[in-house]
């Protein structure tokens, strides 16, 4: 379903993704783990047509994201690392806009919207503006939105960041259910090892832009002689804390949060 061969992405001199290759099978749940700045988000951006690769080959359901972005976009659903809802629209309006952008026929759209809002426990509050939602509700709404156009592949980039354990649990339960019932392929990144351990079939550990290990959770543990996935992860990527520079967006988001009094 996802086929990546020798993918490299450079930003000037900096190599964000260095010659990585992997395949994700249809119906698989595949986790991408790595410290901050390892290249996870860059890889997701390339797979989801937002960024062209510097070199290498990418196929999403047999299609090249650079040459056929529209066809690829129709097949994928994305839940971004940071929120991407319009806070001044209601949940219903956010979904309706998304459905229109993805060419979901109006009648089908309405039915699916109702089903997804009910599934994610948001139906009662569908007409409230999203800015009145809690962090967990926004996340659920984003996931519901990502599923509205029945994607074949769902990309989840750190979907549980900042969620309480209840919402996290609910989210993964839904994702697993979707994967089992509708055969949706899932590609996820997370910092929480227990989540990857729980939901992912195979796990790739990426560091400094390279895949340092790839296999099932049991294989990774066995390879490093660790008892838990967390230990295996630290054994593979070291214990040094990664430096990251905040860009303009991060600074703005922080300022806006302070401004809204959170």
């Amino acid at each position, binding site marked *: 379903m996802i086929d990546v061969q020798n993918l490299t992405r450079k930003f000037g001199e900096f190599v964000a993704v260095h010659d990585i290759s992997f395949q994700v099978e249809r119906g698989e749940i595949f986790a991408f783990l790595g410290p901050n700045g390892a290249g996870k988000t860059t890889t997701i951006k390339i797979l989801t047509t937002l960024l062209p690769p510097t070199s290498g080959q990418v196929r999403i359901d047999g299609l090249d994201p650079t040459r056929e972005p529209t066809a690829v976009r129709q097949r994928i659903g994305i839940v*971004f690392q940071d929120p991407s809802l319009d806070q*001044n629209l209601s949940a219903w309006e956010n979904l309706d806009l998304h459905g*229109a*952008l993805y*060419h979901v026929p109006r009648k089908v759209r309405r039915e699916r919207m109702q089903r997804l809002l009910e599934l994610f426990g948001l139906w009662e509050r569908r007409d409230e503006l999203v800015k009145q939602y809690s962090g967990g509700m926004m996340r659920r709404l984003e996931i519901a939105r990502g599923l509205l156009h029945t994607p074949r592949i769902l990309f989840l980039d750190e979907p549980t960041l900042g969620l309480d354990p209840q919402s996290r649990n609910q989210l993964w339960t839904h994702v697993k259910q979707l994967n089992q019932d509708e055969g949706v392929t899932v590609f996820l990144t997370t910092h929480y090892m227990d989540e990857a351990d729980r939901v992912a079939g195979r796990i790739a550990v990426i560091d400094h832009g390279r895949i340092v290990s790839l296999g099932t959770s049991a294989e990774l543990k066995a390879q490093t002689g660790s008892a838990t996935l967390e230990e295996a992860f630290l054994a593979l990527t070291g214990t040094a804390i990664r430096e990251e520079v905040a860009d303009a967006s991060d600074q703005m988001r922080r300022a*806006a949060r302070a401004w809204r009094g959170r």
Partner: protein
Amino acid sequence: MGAIYVLWLRELKRYARSRVQVVASLGQPLLYLIALGYGLSPVFRRGGEGNYLEFVAPGVIAMTVLFSSLFSGIQLIWDRQFGFLKETLVAPVPRLHIMIGRTCGAASTALIQGLLVAAVAVVAGFRPAAASGLPLAFAFLALIAVVFTAVGTTVGSTLRDMQGFQMVMNLLVMPIFFLSSALFPLDHLPGFLVVLTRIDPLTYGVDGLRGALIARGHFSAVLDLAVMGVLAVALTALGAWRFARIEV
């Protein structure tokens, strides 16, 4: 086409929901109309130019459209920082449609804002010369909205942060407004001001508007229309080009 419509609708909904801002934003133009329109009217009349309120009202209406369409670029930066832009850019829709939808939405709200100020001006005592000029006046307002929304989109697509946008806007907005024909007649100006007013796009928009509303255009309506029309197309193309290069 569906994408253009839904993105246009989104801008209108957001506008309709910001009632407090809408009402608050009528204050400044009202002040201009009262302080300048009534305050300078005696001097203007003594200079043999007639009623200044009548003269300045089209300028103030155009100013409103200028401000709100230029600052639509902020919404673009805002949407980019808060992720909504990304949601639209990964949709299976050509980027040009997204840009057009956003531009139409922003231009429409700027136009509505201009019509509200026109209503305020009528309350303040402004009277258009003839109803037959109103369609043409509307066309000029729409052109001003499109031209400066395109400028806002160009700047908003190029800059990443709010502070930079504010800085560029401050460098643009005030000169565009003050060096146009919004506040003073174009006759008998010193040479340098003749040059400056003629390279300011807003001059042609205001002049066309004034011609349509009170039959006091300096240039012919055809020239005003031609300049604004060409600028609308060229700047929208520039905005689309910059928008196509946004990386999120």
